[in-house]
């Protein structure tokens, strides 16, 4: 294979496993000739990117919780870029989309409305916490984050933002400025001004050696206070309620942040692009905590088929009728709305939010049990089907087991389980919410097999 050049530039692993590693090359060399030809063709025409092209494999189909490569090999996908809450190629979503295509309304210009878009907006208003009543759509989550922040700027008359190191909220310049990863800002020169960052709570790796949750929370809250004393004129605080790795903050932490936002007149914006629509065992992750001023949705909102994202905000913020904070071509795309609505109906009818809570608890228990046998599993955290395993070389020093994590990833891949590694050593487990107990057992046994086989 010639598509991968091992680069000498350090590539950040904070967002995901990278495509330029030695192990990736070894994985690729084990693939069949036809697949390798397509990977070559892909690499010849697409702009190379650290987390996409050159790619790992070529897909031929997806179904339920699984993806299939060209050879027909099946993988339980614990990543899916987060679009697969209702399962991949959900038959009810596909049927609804096809019906919508047949009803001759695949697109409406923005000056017109259509019934699928209205229905989806009504449904979102119904399933989100009560004060959230106003909807605005766009094609991608990065753009939805920008709409939320723009709304906050317009309403507050301020322009500064507060957000978290290591977070990812999208890759437009504003979204990347709010995000806290070097990977998306390095080399870009000046970003959007006024983006302040603090640390997200981390109970496992807190730098003070504290063990009491509330004491740890106080330290993180103090970071917010330090900035807000000097910059009280912040427009919005943007965060995922549960971080990507995930760290599951205490309810106390978010209550304190909510108070802080109220005190300073700051918009609290929750990015639930990944966590919304059932992943954490509730419709929205904010239901575990506090109600934000703006809830941002994306990914699975398009039913795993179409690009669709949006914001849901409070009635009192419907005050930008003289502006265009969205102004995206597909603002009221009836096809995307149909897909989203069908996915939500499917999640509801098949009680998949309850399933996410139950299967999530089952997997967490399984991994915690595994942790007893494999000290390389430093920490297991999660909520619903949003789970992470922090792999360490030493349970005392908690040193990140980066090479080990990558070996585990490829070993699991070979045994039909695909997942993503973030921050270099955290295996993230986010299957479709359709997952069955049998499939959970498969996940557990494939991981167990990898932990048995691979030695530190």
């Amino acid at each position: 294979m010639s598509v991968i050049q091992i680069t000498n530039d350090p590539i950040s692993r904070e967002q995901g496993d990278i495509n330029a590693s030695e192990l990736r090359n070894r994985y690729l060399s084990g693939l069949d000739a036809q697949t390798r030809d397509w990977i070559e063709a892909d690499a010849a025409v697409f702009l190379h990117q650290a987390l996409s092209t050159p790619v790992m494999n070529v897909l031929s189909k997806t179904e339920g919780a699984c993806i299939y490569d060209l050879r027909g090999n099946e993988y339980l996908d614990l990543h899916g870029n987060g679009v697969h809450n209702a399962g991949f190629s959900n038959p009810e979503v596909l049927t609804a989309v096809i019906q919508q295509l047949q009803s001759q309304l695949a697109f409406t210009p923005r000056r017109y409305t259509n019934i699928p878009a209205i229905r989806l907006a009504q449904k979102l208003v119904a399933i989100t916490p009560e004060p959230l009543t106003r909807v605005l759509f766009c094609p991608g989550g990065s753009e939805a984050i920008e709409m939320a922040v723009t709304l906050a700027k317009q309403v507050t008359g301020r322009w500064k933002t507060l957000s978290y190191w290591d977070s990812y909220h999208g890759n437009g310049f504003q979204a990347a400025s709010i995000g806290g990863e070097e990977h998306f800002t390095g080399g870009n020169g000046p970003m959007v001004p006024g983006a302040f960052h603090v640390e997200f709570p981390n109970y496992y790796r807190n730098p003070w050696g504290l063990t009491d949750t509330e004491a740890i929370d106080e330290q993180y809250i103090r970071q917010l206070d330090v900035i807000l004393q000097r910059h009280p004129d912040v427009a919005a605080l943007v965060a995922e309620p549960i971080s990507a790795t995930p760290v599951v903050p205490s309810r106390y932490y978010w209550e304190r942040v909510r108070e802080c936002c109220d005190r300073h007149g700051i918009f609290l914006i929750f990015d639930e692009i990944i966590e919304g629509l059932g992943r954490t065992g509730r419709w929205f992750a904010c239901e575990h905590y506090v109600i934000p001023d703006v809830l941002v949705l994306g990914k699975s909102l398009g039913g795993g088929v179409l690009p669709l994202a949006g914001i849901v905000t409070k009635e009192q913020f419907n005050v930008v009728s003289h502006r265009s904070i969205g102004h995206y071509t597909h603002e009221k795309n009836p096809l995307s709305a149909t897909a989203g609505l069908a996915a939500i109906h499917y999640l509801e009818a098949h009680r998949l939010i309850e399933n996410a809570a139950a299967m999530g608890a089952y997997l967490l228990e399984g991994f915690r049990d595994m942790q007893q046998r494999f000290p390389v599993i430093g920490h297991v955290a999660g909520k619903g089907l949003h789970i992470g395993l922090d792999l360490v070389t030493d349970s005392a020093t908690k040193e990140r087991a980066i090479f080990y994590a990558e070996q585990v990833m490829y070993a699991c891949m070979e045994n039909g389980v695909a997942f993503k590694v973030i921050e270099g050593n955290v295996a993230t487990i986010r299957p479709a919410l359709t997952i069955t107990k049998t499939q959970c057992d498969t996940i557990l046994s494939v991981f167990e097999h990898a932990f048995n086989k691979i030695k530190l």
Partner: protein
Amino acid sequence: MLNFWSDSMGDNKNTAKHLVEEGDLNVSGQRKLWHDALTDDATRDALQRDADHFLHQALSTPCLDVLASSDGAQLTSLAGKTYIDFHGNNVHQLGYNNSFVIDRVKQQLDILAFCPRRFTNLPAIELAERLAALTEHRLNRVLFAPGGTSAIGMALKLARIHTGKFKTLAMYDSFHGASMDSISLGGEYVFQQGLGPLMAGSVHVPPVDSYRGMWFNPNDQDGDMAYADYLEYVLEKEGDIGVLVAETVRSTTVHVPSQAYWRRIRELCDQHGVLLVFDEIPIGMGRTGKSFAYQHYGIVPDMLVLGKGLGAGIMPMAAMLCKDELNIAAQVSLGHFTHEKSPLGAAAALAGLDYMDAHGVLPHVDRMGQLMANRLEAMKAAYEAIGDVRGVGLLWGVELVKDRETKTPDPVLAERVLYHCLGRGLSFKVSGGNVLSLYPPLVISEQKLHEALDILEDAFRSNS
């Protein structure tokens, strides 16, 4: 009486003045009359629900009407009224409900609808290869995104990484998207207002305006060269501009620069180490009679951004194409968008390209464009209010004035003409307050085009 009308515009006169630059507003008196005249209960009910649940926006909610279906050049409302659509947010290049495209999308749904970004799939590869081929392989590296705004952001990042320079140069009045980066880059105050500091180093120059431009020389065939001279001056004074982003042909108010202008600018970019990026989101994919508008000018940009019509009227889909030598960002993620390699979006786009080839869409655009030019010129000869007619292919702007000598814009007439046409079944957008923006689907039949232009002519007749 629909009750979503508010006086929110009252204290925002300044905003309104700038807002009309992008399009006709939903808060005007004419719009209110339009709504009051809607009698169908189901329509009024749906509009009310729409206005109750969506965040209000000057150019969308509250909406004009509720659509039930669409076909070819036509939209059909819930009440059964039809509109020939000369707007379509520019995704309607191949007509609405194009059955050739829809069949292919339906087939793809049964095969592979989505592909996580770490994997690839055959339709995405084929589309990338096909687009590269349409540029004669001059722009042979591709990156996809779900929307044009995001694709512009990718181009800006790539330019910064490649040149090591962060300053951007773009045109006043241009629109490149609605995120902070594309708003900073673009030149419309209405989108920038109230957002606090924008992106550093966003420099702007005046766009070519062949009708009322301060530097335009109407006595010269290449009367827009003073704009290129000023651009050169700015490149020299700023010293470290990394990228020039421009619409090859301005879409909304329709300004078509001369060949000499773009050729000179291509030279200037090369001399100053500036990357030239053409935003063809609204006008690529055949609108001007060629696959890409830059192909009229005998130059090649360093990057080309596509969107809207790329998804063939069905899928949100955008792309950034660039020269192979710009494939230098493998260590980062310029895009990183969930639907980076959407097999469904790619299937729609490929079907669109196949349809264009099979049905000779580009030659059809040439013929229909000529027809449109002739009829609009004839209207200009007949109606004093038409100050200027400009266009290429099926992209036309008709500028309405109170007086041909003073060229005073006539926004009131423009809005009257708009609502007259809407009432009789022709939909288009008004840009810059007084320019009728006319973009029929590229597949419109001669008969339908005449029908639409008859409605337009009737509007001039009734209002003159």
